[in-house]
């Protein structure tokens, strides 16, 4: 037997893009954008109910709510969309027709994930723009008030204070971390769904991992004995804590936005390391998802 020479390439960006863009299209046409509408309403709504507060307080609450909403909506989109994509393709047997073409399984998986990540990018950017717009409009409102009621010598300081309390460049690393956290959750959900038999199961497990991931640092600290002197942890509990610390991701590390909103600045090196760690998580989960998917009976 002499196989004819193959022109097939193991990895092809065009195929990857074909799958990713198709996935994005699929998700966009699925009314997920009602989420975003809801987001806009939440941000705008919260600014309306806060009129009795000083403008600093208004802006702080507005930013907290907007960024909190961005964080939760991006995460929800990541989990819900990713939990759906594999089961739907398997159920509709579209997966058969795709994998019967010369498409390696990892390319398919990567394409699907890339589609979700593109969607998240789109959604988060849109939410960011809406939030910035709402803040800007409120800022113009308040500015008019300041211009009318402030003595000229204090004007500069008042305007500076106002600008500092609305949308600042400080927020950007925080927003990027929201994205990275959502990307980790998407890869994690993909990993779970490569084992799971139903999307509901995937979603439940993914949400649980998300919640546990936020208390992972507590488990880690107890496990590594970084605790108040005198505390004694029984050995069995210690093994359990170690297991939790090793298996579950530390999502708390990506939660910097709460502090950033109130003015804390993230040093660039710390941000870069956190982002890299996030990339590492995403890569590892994706690779594991592939290993499981490669074995999967379709």
């Amino acid at each position, binding site marked *: 037997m002499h196989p004819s020479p193959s022109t097939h390439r193991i990895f092809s960006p065009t195929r990857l893009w074909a799958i990713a863009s198709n996935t994005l299209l699929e998700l966009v046409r699925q009314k997920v954008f009602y989420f975003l509408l809801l987001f806009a309403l939440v941000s705008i709504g919260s600014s309306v109910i*806060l009129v*009795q*507060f000083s403008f*600093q*307080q208004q802006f*702080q*609450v507005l930013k*907290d*709510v907007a*960024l*909190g909403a961005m*964080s*939760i909506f991006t995460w929800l989109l990541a989990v819900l969309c990713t939990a759906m994509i594999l089961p739907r393709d398997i159920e509709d047997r579209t997966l058969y027709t795709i994998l019967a073409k010369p498409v390696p399984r990892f390319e398919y998986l990567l394409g699907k994930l890339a589609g979700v990540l593109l969607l998240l990018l789109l959604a988060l950017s849109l939410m960011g723009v809406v939030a910035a717009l709402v803040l800007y409009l409120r800022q113009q409102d308040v500015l008019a008030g300041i211009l009318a009621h402030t003595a000229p010598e204090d004007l500069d300081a008042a305007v500076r204070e106002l600008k500092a309390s609305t949308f600042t460049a400080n927020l950007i690393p925080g927003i990027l971390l929201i994205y990275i*956290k959502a990307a980790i959750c998407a890869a994690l959900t993909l*990993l779970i769904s490569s*084992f799971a038999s139903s999307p509901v199961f995937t979603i439940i497990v993914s949400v649980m991992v*998300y*919640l546990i991931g*936020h*208390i992972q*640092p507590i488990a*880690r600290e107890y496990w*590594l004995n970084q605790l108040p002197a005198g505390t004694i942890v029984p050995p069995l509990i210690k093994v359990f804590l170690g297991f939790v*610390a*090793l*298996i579950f991701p*530390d*999502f*708390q*590390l990506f*939660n*910097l*936005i*709460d*502090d*950033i*909103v*109130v*003015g*804390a*600045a*993230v*040093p660039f*090196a*710390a941000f870069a*390391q*956190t982002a890299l*760690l996030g990339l*590492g*998580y995403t890569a*590892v989960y994706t690779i*594991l998802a592939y*290993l*499981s998917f490669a*074995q999967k009976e379709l």
Partner: protein
Amino acid sequence: MRIRTALITLACLLAFGAGRIPIENHLAARHGAAGLNTAQLDLSLRQRIGQMSFLAALSGFRAVVADLLWIEAHSAWERTEWGRMKLLLDTVTALQPRAILFWDNAAWHMAWNASVAAREDRSQPREALRIRNQREYFKAGEDFLLRGIQNNPSSALLHERLGLLYQDKFRDPARAAEAFQRSAQLPGASQYVHRFALYQLALVPGREAEAYACLKALYQKSKQEHLPTLLRRLQDLEKKLSVPPDQRLPILESP
């Protein structure tokens, strides 16, 4: 087959965990040093805010939970429920220790609003008790500011507010002067805090000479500093220190 894959995945996750935990530990310490993620979310907090809010606060919605409690504190204020308000403010600041706004406002509510209400509380017939309650709210305000400063050592605003509290409520010029002086040395300080510090220093028994020297330096720096309070303090000090008339500054008697 699936079980084998699951076990391999688990093993990989454990190995990945072992690799990343030192990095995460290091990174968590780094964040802490930068003042990030310093809120103490402990069991007492859980008791105060309930299971759901605690879960939300843990999973990345700390700021939003704090805001909701803040709005609740605001309505407690409107209903003049001072005790409840203090509890809520304690929780809010525990959730958001980096929010200077919360510390500042919490202290103001305690020392300026609640204290006045306590002083004028008609349900408490005994004057002595009313005064004691009033002082307690002063203390509560001071407490918020001190904790706020502990969490945000470089906040000029909180030091300034602490100075004001000592000046107006405790009538303690020594501590007020010190707080103002600290504030003046921090970035973003108001221009007037240095002056305020000297005004208070002038009232501290035994430090009049020091205050006089500093105020005089300020006076000589520029004409813009010739504010009425400054002039009055200088004259008072000259009298107190019995500065010989020929060495006194050429200040016209205030009308």
